[in-house]
């Protein structure tokens, strides 16, 4: 068959899919942290109270442990992890300092409204060594935030409270609209937590931090309703190629 020299068939544009924007964001952050030296680890989503609360210095009376905040399963034998921190506990029990690892994944809390979902994603990291201090934590957080939002972004550290870190801080960035937006929580690992994991807290200290993936993805992509991420609407997903 002779083919005319001017015939140029239309380009065959192959339909490509896309990563889910939450997984893409999670992977981006994990890869960034891995490039800083953190090892990637994993843990179960179904946890015990011991790992999810007790070992993290979250007292029996803490409101987060109530049935209205935490999903319990199997007649309260276990629970759906409320944060990825239990992975840090498992890691500290398995390994000896110095250690640096991150974990990311699904976590569950008993919320369901326009700004909160019963399932969402976190990335958490921990670094233990001798003489790890708050000034170093600040340096790490600056590096993370600058990598995510550019070096022009303004950020501030605020005192906060987490039972598993002391001192604790929350970090905000200044939006283009001039509003401070909370981005992550961090702090120095509470020596009680180190002791719980049989790590000598008079010799070692550590830093820990945690980021909510949905919140960062919403900011980076300009998504205003968190529920859009989980409708599996192709019109939504195809925007993130």
């Amino acid at each position, binding site marked *: *068959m002779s083919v*005319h020299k001017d*015939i140029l068939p*239309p380009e065959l*544009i*192959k*339909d*490509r*899919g896309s*990563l*889910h924007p*939450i*997984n893409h*964001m999670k992977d*981006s952050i994990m890869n960034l942290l*891995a490039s800083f*030296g*953190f090892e*990637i680890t994993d843990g*179960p*989503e*179904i946890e015990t109270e011991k790992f999810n609360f007790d070992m993290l210095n979250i007292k029996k009376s803490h*409101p987060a442990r109530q*049935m209205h905040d935490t*999903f*319990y*399963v*199997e007649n309260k034998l276990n629970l*759906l992890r409320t944060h990825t921190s239990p992975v840090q506990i498992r890691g500290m029990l398995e390994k000896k300092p110095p250690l640096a690892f991150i974990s990311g994944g*699904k976590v569950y809390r*008993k919320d*369901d409204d326009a700004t909160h979902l*019963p*399932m969402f994603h976190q990335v958490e990291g921990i*670094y233990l060594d001798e003489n790890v201090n*708050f*000034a170093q934590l*600040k*340096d790490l957080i600056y*590096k993370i935030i600058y990598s995510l939002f550019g070096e022009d972004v303004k950020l*501030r550290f*605020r*005192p906060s*409270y987490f039972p598993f870190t*002391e*001192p*604790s*801080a929350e970090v905000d960035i200044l939006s283009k609209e001039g509003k401070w937006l909370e981005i992550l929580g961090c702090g*120095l690992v509470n*020596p*009680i937590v180190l002791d719980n994991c049989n790590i000598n807290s008079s010799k070692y*200290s550590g830093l820990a931090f945690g980021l909510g993936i949905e919140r960062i993805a919403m900011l*980076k*992509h300009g998504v205003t309703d968190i529920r*859009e*991420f*989980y409708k*599996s609407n*192709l019109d939504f997903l195809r925007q993130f*190629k």
Partner: protein
Amino acid sequence: MKIAYSHLVQHIEENPSIEHLSDNLFQLGHEHEIEDGIFDMEFTPNRGDCLSINGLLRDLAVFYSVNLNQEIHNQKLNELLIDFENLSNDVCPQISFLKIEIDKVPAAYKSSLDNYFSDLALNKNNFFTDISNYLSYETGQPTHCYDAKKISGKLVFHEIERETEFETLLDKKITLMHKDAVFSINNEVINLAGVIGGKRTACSSDTKTVIVECAFFQPEAIIGKSLKYDLHSEASHKFERGVDPDCHDRVLRRFIKIVSEHANIKDMSIISYTYKDRPVNKIPVNVNKVNQILGINISEDDYLMHISRLGFDINKGVIEVPSFRSDVKTQNDLSEEVARVIGYDNIPRAMIDIPKNEKPNNKDIENKLRFFLLDNGFYEVINSPFVGSNSDKSIKVDNPLDSNREYLRTNITNSLLDNLVFNERRQKDSIKLFEISDIYTSKNNEIKKIRRLSIIASGRVGHNHEDFSKKINKKYLTKIFYEALPSEKFDFQLLARDTLNTKSKNEIIGCEVDMDSFSSEVLNYKETSKSPDNFNQYTTISDLPYSKRDLSFSIKDFTKCKSLQDCIFNYEDDLLKEVFIFDYFYNEKNSEIKIGFRFIFQSTNITITETQVSNVMNSIINETQKIKSISIPGLNLL
């Protein structure tokens, strides 16, 4: 908690502006919003001591000269004779009672008390309850007022042993549960301790003799009670976070003082019970440790000055923690105090150097598979694990959000089928989805975790002119997966549509595979898709109906093919959502090329009309007709 700027600033010598005060509150970690001179404070749960004017002033004393010496009644008081028994002194290790009789209930309040209600737009109740509420605001210590005339018999504090009916002073009837801490008289509950008083002994506008209860309850005994019984209670909010166990005498003497400013006191007496001594928490002075924790270099003098201004006593090399700071126990806690005073933002960064990690990422195979699926037009989704139906291996959620989310899913495919139906209802004609997730099952109380990949596809193979008329089927999927990943098993199956509420007749093909079953051969796959370099800005999607139009062009001068495509693909209109070539045919015999374009119209805010679509289509046609030797067969018939 709402606190008026004017109520704070009257105790601060420097008379700071609201903005100055706000900045310092933020530095101390006390988040807030300001509206009409009122701070709407949000305290962290460890800082129950700040839930009052005095509490906040104690923290602000590190920046300002603060006067906390509100007047109190400082004369000797008679001992109150009260028939009281504490059967649960673990829950209530300290409690005091004050009895006051006045000659007449005042008709109006002095401005110092009245301003509390007017500035914060609060309703008044009755004289004694109003003072109690004000004192809670001023000192942080909730007190409860019983009408003394309604108290007869032995007052007992105890934890109840069986379900008991109780009517609150807000007329709400609740059934108290086992172990709730209460005050009772003659086996009748008159007060749910630390939460809300009872109707029967409540004060009224006529009450002239009151018994004021001032207690310390262990937070653990109070937590969750107001939520459990759906009671809004500021007292429980404070008791849950911990109150100052050593403030009772001062608070009750302040109560007397305020009463005396409004009425003649005919009689008053007081009694305090302490069942357990509270040891003072002592921490050695160790500025080196603080410097080591924070990575700073503060002098011991500065350190001790900051700490003492926050109310800590320093005695012979030891820091004594005040009774209102039950949250401070360790050097790390003291370091946080110093950091707050210095300002977290004023602590300089110190370079961190984490040793490089050489361990491989154990998700490499999973990531390869994800990109292989992207290359073939599949979209990654994430679904909630909560489902309404169960199998014998399902894990049951003890406290589900609702009955439709009572179990954890035992497969991913059913979630993908829901996603498919969702998209078919939005007129999507080519649907390819995948999800990788951990699946949890339970057998004989043993929980098993399996990581799985589920794939589902239905409709057209694709939207380009070669794929548009082909439908996805088992043979097609098996072929493309085998060609790319010959060593892996994908057992594609035709999935039933019977139970799906959908009009589409397209075959649904899917498979679900354990991630463990994949071999390292997957790593040899060379993907062409990449992770996006940027984070695309999202454009609001529309749930309004689509409208589609097809146009077929006949081209005799083949050099014009490109011009036609450029003309159409560059055409812009707000209603035109998508354009693609769905048909292309070269007819050698007639020396003609035919190209079919599909135009998809949709608005983000209106349901588009035929006329609107036709207007855009006519405009596109007019543009294309400017290109010579291109025609639209049948155009004259339109």
